[in-house]
């Protein structure tokens, strides 16, 4: 989906005038409030990589806040040229630091927060507040405001409108000035979401501020160190704050494909005899793989026994009610052209042993492509009964993932995800010590 522009040029206003301006904007003559009765969305949108590329003149401006193909290609080229690991995350500090050395242009158009993808606009958010930190420390805060009325294919009697507010400036100015105003921009009775569209290692003071404010959080644990990600998730659960993770959302096709294998009642028995699970991932961020293993263990009622690292491989052992053990492993795989989301699952192998005779046992393989399936078949798996599926990874933009999440979320943390986080954090704790 293409981004939608606001119909009017955003108006620059002093930050303190914005709350009053917006109040007046929604008082109409016929006393009917035509603002959407939906939700408000605060977006943390640093777009460091894009800012660096544009300011180094490696790509053309303006800065939009979207991770375009051009940026991805340029980033991958930079990774290759500088001998960094191929799976280096696009939000990583290493990459930004490399680019920061060559910044020489400070004059560029910054359109962050002034338009947004139609997958989100079709949900008619009442208010979108974008926090657009600049890479320079000196930038004072600038605030912009604009009303929007997205055009829809559906015939409606009434236009449903919303507004956009952008805070642009250095992180310091956002902390000292922006956050004070944001408090006044909240709309009573409407749910308020925070989408952290950047690395979770970034600006913890701002993240923690919103987290404490009780916003419904949308994060992406593919962006950030595993420690920080697990810490955020655990704290959110403890404090009973709603949290949603795009890394979990992207796991849906794997969970769905695996569940599909066991839909026919004739295959249910296999679940009682699983002895081994191997998960292959891209790069070394294992959070998504941990979610997957935790979800399976939760659904099948396994107890966590131990977890350890052997070189790059993570080994986790579970125990079933009948005392049988299940060995699971997470294996980082070198990939030529890794996904923009680090640590994505690319293969899953389950072995279900019902007999000493291999022919009576079953090996289930899910791979993101045929080559991955073939890799997982190696080691004599074909001696068993093989069930294989390719789970193509149609990675969508983060905006599309957020839209999907907003459209389907009940606002609280999904119980499946909650249980998965609990087990993941236990595994992580064992691995850490």
């Amino acid at each position, binding site marked *: 989906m293409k981004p939608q522009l606001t119909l009017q040029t955003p108006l620059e206003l002093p930050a303190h005038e914005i709350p009053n301006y917006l109040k007046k904007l929604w008082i109409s003559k016929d006393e009917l409030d035509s603002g959407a009765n939906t939700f408000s969305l605060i977006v943390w949108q640093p777009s460091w990589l894009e800012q660096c590329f544009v300011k180094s003149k490696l790509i053309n401006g303006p800065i939009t806040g979207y991770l375009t193909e051009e940026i991805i290609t340029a980033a991958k080229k930079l990774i290759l040229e500088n001998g960094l690991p191929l799976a280096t995350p696009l939000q990583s500090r290493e990459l930004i630091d490399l680019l920061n050395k060559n910044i020489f242009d400070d004059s560029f158009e910054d359109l962050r927060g002034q338009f947004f993808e139609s997958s989100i606009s079709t949900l008619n958010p009442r208010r979108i507040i974008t926090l657009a930190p600049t890479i320079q420390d000196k930038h004072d805060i600038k605030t912009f405001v604009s009303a929007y009325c997205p055009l829809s294919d559906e015939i*409606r*009697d009434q236009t449903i409108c919303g507004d956009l507010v952008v805070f642009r400036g250095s992180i310091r100015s956002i902390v000292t000035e922006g956050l004070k105003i944001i408090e006044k921009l909240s709309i009573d009775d409407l749910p308020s979401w925070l989408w952290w569209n950047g690395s979770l290692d970034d600006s913890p003071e701002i993240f923690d501020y919103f987290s404490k404010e009780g916003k419904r959080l949308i994060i992406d644990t593919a962006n950030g160190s595993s420690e920080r990600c697990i810490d955020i998730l655990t704290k959110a659960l403890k404090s009973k704050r709603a949290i949603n993770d795009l890394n979990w959302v992207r796991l849906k096709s794997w969970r*769905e494909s695996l*569940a599909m294998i066991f*839909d026919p*009642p004739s295959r*249910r028995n296999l679940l009682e005899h699983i002895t081994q699970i191997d998960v292959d991932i891209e790069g070394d961020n294992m959070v998504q793989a941990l979610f997957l293993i935790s979800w399976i263990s939760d659904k099948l009622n396994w107890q966590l026994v131990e977890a350890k690292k052997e070189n790059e491989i993570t080994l986790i052992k579970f125990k079933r009610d009948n005392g049988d053990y299940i060995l699971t492993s997470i294996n980082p795989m070198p990939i030529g052209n890794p996904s923009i989301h680090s640590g994505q699952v690319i293969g899953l192998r389950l072995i279900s042993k019902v007999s000493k005779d291999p022919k009576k046992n079953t090996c289930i393989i899910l791979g993101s492509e045929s080559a991955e399936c073939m890799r997982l078949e190696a080691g004599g798996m074909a001696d068993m009964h093989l069930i294989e599926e390719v789970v193509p990874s149609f990675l969508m933009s983060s905006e599309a993932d957020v839209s999907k999440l907003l*459209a*389907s979320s*009940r606002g609280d943390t999904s119980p499946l995800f909650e249980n998965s986080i609990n087990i993941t954090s236990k595994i992580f704790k064992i691995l850490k010590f």
Partner: protein
Amino acid sequence: MQSSISNPLRLGLRQERVIPPQCLVIFGASGDLTHRKLIPALFELFLQRRLPSEFAIVGCARRPWSDEEFKEKMRLKLCDKISSHEQEWTKFTEFLFYEPVDLQEESHVKRLSQRLIEIDRLKATHGNKTFYLSVSPNFYEGGCKSLKNVGLLDDPIKSRIVIEKPFGRDYSSARKLNKIVQSCANESQIYRIDHYLGKETVQNILVLRFANTIFEPIWNRNYISNIQITSSETVGVEDRAGYYETSGALRDMLQNHLTQMLAVIAMEPPGKFDPEAIRNEKAKVLQASKLANEIEPWNCCIRGQYEEGGNYDNPLKGYRDENGVGKNSTTETYIATKIFIDNWRWQGVPFYLRTGKRLPKRLGEIVLTFKDVPVHLFESTIINPAPNQLIIRIQPDEGATFKFEVKSPGSGMRSRPVEMEFSYDESFGEPSDEGYVRLLADSMLGDPTLFTRSDEVEAAWKLYTPLIELMENAPWKLPVHKYESMTWGPPESDQLLAKDNIFWRRP
């Protein structure tokens, strides 16, 4: 569909669309439908965690019950279902309210309006309201007008009405009713419910046709010789004689459920999966449908009425001996008809629709019979090679069967038919939701895809107008043939097809 041990990996995965904060107002809350279908469906949605916490159900009827009495009545009626979910039921009852309302009395509706404001505040339902008219069709007009007059339908986005069948008695009454309802609310606010469209297998027809490339190229007059649509019940009229005597099989089943199945099976592919795009195509195909012989409709329709049957241990009464049925009743309990669709896809392909009570099996199915091969190269183990058939089973044992010829083992090259089978039970092993679960959720989500639009309803009545007129003006031309209970209808029904050298499938 039989339930079996659930797939543990499937649990919780099915959460898709979330119902927004909502107040569902059920008129006719003391009636059968409320405790038999609506409240169980809502409780099921609650168990599936698909209801928001900002939710309320307000039961309305003339009886002077209190909230607590309503809760208790529902608990008693649903005790079997809730026995294993006592705690959940207790939480669910926090959503339940009751207001005594006579829909004909505007002062009652005004009082209801005030109560809804209080409930909206209490449960934070954001002013979203769905009004479910589970009342006699005689009250649709007055009910809609009262709701309109007190302003409960003013917001076209936040308020909607759900209306049960029958929507009219014929083409002109349906048009009149549409006009009245549309004067009270926009068409986008009106949800005409046909619970057959809530069935998983009926929706699966759309997926089968439009998510596979193999079916659509042969889904036309070039490959299909005829289509049979059957919906049969083993039960008689039971305690519904009062209603059934005024409706009969045509109005009760043929005009709505069977005709909706016809529309889904025969419609053109929509440009996109969008409620209006789908309903446009359904309306178009119904508008192109006509009785096989409109001039002499008695030649394309057979009516029947069940007589006594059964056996010594279990004797069954004839229709005229049922409680509340007149001794000379000519109400049909069985109807079969032949329809053509005047468009490029279906020109010349007969559609045979039949429905009846006290037939040998309870089932719903659609049978697509393909044309015979042009040359018979092989000898068949039976007289002639059987034509290919695709049988879509709506209920029970939901699924599909494809019949085709294979070589019979042994020397020689003799062919015989075999069946390729898809069963929901064997593939998914999970019971599918009751139609009402899906449709109630869709109505509260504002998704009208599975609801019939005014033009569809009118086209469906128009299709049967020659039959209805004949039944009213010259009933002797369309006599009611007797059939023994627990047989497949009157023999005349077989002759309807025999004229075309076709036979009803004996399921």
